[in-house]
């Protein structure tokens, strides 16, 4: 009886374990099947590097370069803003802040993480967008820059909390060792604490960027959604994710447009995967 129970539980856990892999494989296969179909009408090169995205003209022009650049531009901008602020914030919380302020800051960061992205996008639309418009004297505030700033706010909680954890878990003895050598607080932080926590900090940054690349709702609301080649960070752009979200509803199932959207999904998948692999390689090289 006992043995039977053990057996059943063991198998149940096995099934749970396999299920996650099974579903991932299933999703990936589906994505491939639907997405690769588009390449029967348009060459992969033309798809990736075509400058025109007119999916419903006749014949449809399916070049996603403007979308890829849109995503990269917004992500890059968000990374440039959020990485220094996020890591700096983590260092402040982990190393400098007095105990009570530390708690307040941590609670604040968690609150920031709890804001749904659509709400953040909405607030960005009514506050940030007009601000960017008047501040830079632009015809419209719906630009890649607005998206970057907004997404930086979304990446920040991830970066701060994970980087702070990484710094916190650096053994106290390292710090004492550096202090005992006559290092100042800042020397200790930048020559000992940051290198020792670098793995965790890189992971934090990668996860933050991962969140930015995958974000859909907020960018759709404030980047202007113009699927044209962006010529600067002050121009409206459209990201890969926003394209799928905006157009999937109206694409005719089985049409070229429909397959193209799935192919965009594959591209997104590859980008995310590449980010994770790079992070992984970097992390393991450090050790």
């Amino acid at each position: 009886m006992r043995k039977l129970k053990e057996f059943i539980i063991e198998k149940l856990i096995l099934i749970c374990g396999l299920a996650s892999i099974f579903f991932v494989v299933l999703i990936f296969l589906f994505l491939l099947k639907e997405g690769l179909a588009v390449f029967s009408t348009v060459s992969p090169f033309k798809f990736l590097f075509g400058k025109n995205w007119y999916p419903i003209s006749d014949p449809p022009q399916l070049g996603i370069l403007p979308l890829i650049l849109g995503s990269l531009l917004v992500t890059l901008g968000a990374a440039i803003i959020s990485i220094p602020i996020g890591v700096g914030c983590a260092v402040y919380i982990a190393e400098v802040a007095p105990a009570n302020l530390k708690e307040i800051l941590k609670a604040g960061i968690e609150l920031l993480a709890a804001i749904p992205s659509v709400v953040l996008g909405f607030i960005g639309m009514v506050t940030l967008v007009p601000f960017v418009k008047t501040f830079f004297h632009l015809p419209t505030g719906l630009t890649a820059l607005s998206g970057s700033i907004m997404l930086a706010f979304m990446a920040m909680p991830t970066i701060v909390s994970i980087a702070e954890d990484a710094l916190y878990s650096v053994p106290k003895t390292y710090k004492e060792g550096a202090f005992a050598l006559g290092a100042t607080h800042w020397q200790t932080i930048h020559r000992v604490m940051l290198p020792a926590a670098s793995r965790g900090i890189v992971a934090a940054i990668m996860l933050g960027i991962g969140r930015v690349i995958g974000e859909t709702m907020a960018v759709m609301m404030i980047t202007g959604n113009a699927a044209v080649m962006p010529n600067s960070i002050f121009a409206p752009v459209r990201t890969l994710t926003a394209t799928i979200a905006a157009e999937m509803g109206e694409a005719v199932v089985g049409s070229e447009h429909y397959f193209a959207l799935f192919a965009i999904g594959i591209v997104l998948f590859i980008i995310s995967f590449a980010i994770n692999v790079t992070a992984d390689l970097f992390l393991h090289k450090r050790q």
Partner: protein
Amino acid sequence: MVNPVRNKKLEETSGRNNQETISNGVKFEIHDLNIWFGPAQVIKHVNMEIRSNEILSVIGPANSGKTTFLRALNRLNELNTNYRITGAIELEREDIRGIKVEELRRKIGMVFALPLPLPLSIFDNVAYGIRMHGERGKKKLEEKVEETLRQAYLWEEVKDRLSESAFKLSGGQQQRLCIARTLAVRPEVVLFDEPCSGLDPISTAKVEDAMVKFKEKFTIVLVTNNVKQAARVGDKTAFFLNGELVELDKTDRIFTAPQDKRTDGYVRGKFG
């Protein structure tokens, strides 16, 4: 208790030292030192002098305050927020609270119980302190690193693998690396906090040899749980119990004719 050969050696050492002591200046003067962590008083009314170019061994059972005493000398206790201190510690007649803490810690190096290399290469571990105190020239840096590694009896073992991670060294090598790192900034005093507690006897002997050699250049304070180690390397020995300094005297006197019964009991291994 102490074996005769060892004892004889001790007498020789301290005999030679007697003459030196006359010329030796006072390095530390400690007046009525009291230390609390929160409500608990861990050091009680300690008065003592530590002289230059001597090894002072500090012995005592666990919780006797010896490590706290040691960490008071380079103000490392101040990392604890609930730490409170009264009395005065003077380094060459200057109150250590008046010295910039980084400067103080450069003058007073410290070697910890567990070897704790920084997460850097062997070379960078030693170069760390040198760089921190302003030396940038590559050639100069290399010279200094080699010189210090030789002083710590480590050069021969690591000269071909300086760029490897310090974590790849054995425990004994790591500890000598930490000693080299401490020496690299040219301190005046080196504090050893149970430096051999995790080491095998051969590594311990190497570290002890190094310490005896160092006292020509530095003042050494050695906290140790190993009473025999205190007898082997200490010129003077201080016995702490429950935060009080029970007795401080020449090492051979502490081990052969202690004035206090409690000291006698401890060095004979009756408790602790």
